[in-house]
């Protein structure tokens, strides 16, 4: 649960900031999607944009959480012939 929040929550905040800056500078109607001008309503574009940012930011947070796994946890099970030498994990 804690790890899910670590991924979803910071990415939510950063996505909000990114959304604000991006769409202040760029008008959604100036965007192109696969070579075609975006034809969604502006509210839809803003919303999809927000979730896009959120997904990208969440992916980054996910990697951070993934890489934070300590050596002890990665090694767990490998040295099973002499378990008990590391009980701190």
């Amino acid at each position: 649960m804690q790890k899910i929040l670590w991924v979803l929550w910071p990415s939510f905040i950063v996505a909000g900031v990114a959304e604000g800056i991006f769409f202040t500078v760029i008008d959604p109607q100036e965007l192109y999607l696969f070579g075609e001008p975006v034809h969604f309503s502006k509210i839809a574009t803003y919303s999809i944009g927000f979730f896009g940012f959120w997904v990208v930011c969440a992916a980054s947070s996910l990697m951070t959480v993934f890489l934070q796994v300590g050596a002890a946890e990665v090694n767990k099970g490998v040295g099973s012939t002499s378990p008990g030498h590391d009980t701190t994990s």
Partner: protein
Amino acid sequence: MHPSSAPSTAAEVKPDFVEESLYEVHRKVHPRAVSGIFATWRWALVWFTQLVFYGLCWLPWNGRQAVLFDLVERKFYIFGLIFWPQDVIFLAILLIISAYSLFLFTAVGGRLWCGYACPQTVYTEIFTWIEQKIEGERNARIKLDAAPMSGRKLWLRSAKYGSWTLLSLWTGFTFVGYFTPIQTLWGSVWSFSLGPWETFWMIFYGAFTYLFAGHMREQVCKHMCPYARFQGVMFDPDTLTITYDTERGEPRGARKKGVDPKAIAKGDCVDCGICVQVCPTGIDIRDGLQYECIGCAACIDACDQVMEKMSYPKGLIRYSTEHAIASHWGWKEILGHVVRPRVIVYAVILGAICVAFVWGIATKPSLRVDVIRDRATLAREVEGGLIENVYRLHVINISEASHRYAVSVSGLPGIDMVGERILEVPAAGARSFSVQVRVPPDAGRKGSNQIFFDVKSLADEKVAVHEKASFLQP
């Protein structure tokens, strides 16, 4: 996370260690209701902020919504002011002002924002109030939580969750009403013609309100709020914090009413535990300053009532500073230490930015003109041997009234223009006009020549723009 449950599939490999989560088990906090001066302040702030939030979006202004962040038209209306995407600098300055205000308040008064004004505090306060009205006081709620499901429990729970849901939906509706005109939105609710995204955001925001204020409460402050983590850097020994006077209170202990603490060799703390019961984050302030403390002062109100009953002086828990507690200062000395380098620096920066902000808003132009040279035809010869360049004038009327503007051009001998000379632009609108500028072939030098467009309002000649452009002479 729980390898102890895993070996059931491989019974022969039994680990001789059990991994345990290092996180403490979360216990539900049932804050006891409290009354007193600081509770009154907090409720005043609840009323003020929520009247503004729920009410402001219904306020009309010049035939439109007074405060509307119109995302579709990409224009923000705040009373008489209209902000375009080009004005994003004001938003940036506003954020800087908010940040510095927060720094200043925190340096002087500790977590005033958290304790009184933060939406998390405000909505938790409202949701807890509903909970208390329906399920009863703290003890009744703890009993109800422990009780098995019954008709009464089901009824109380449905009433509580139902009220929370209604309030959350209304909050979500109000939130969306700041981005889509709320009158129209209200109409579409009743004609079941809400757009899919409006519906989505309403439920999304409502659900977050419900989750944060109804269920997560102090968890948000403890685990999710970035400000709670770094507010400590704004603190110094002269910052006001909610402080338990250890010297006066210890050794704590129960006693009969009216007993002189000195006679029984005890401090003033009667160890009633009410300060812990009222705490919305479930901490014991007597353990000293903790980052979980949101500075709501509920324990001050609660302790003062107990002290009054015991006929002891109030203020065993009070707003004080580290220095004041150590040196037994009174309010006079505490206030005397408010002005210090950190506070002066924050105040000066904040003051300067505020002045710049107000000046910027006051002198915000009400007309903006962009001149774009037509790149398709650089320069061409027209009848009478004149040389012509074509421009597009993008005229943005930032005011609330429609304007007619006179356009003229200058900068080269014999320069003149063909096309509309009077441009009409509606209120808070933008229009593009094509303008052909002609000069005699011998005017200026070969290549680029500087010319100027003047756009002046016919109604108010102070509303004028002098815009540079370049004329290409072949």
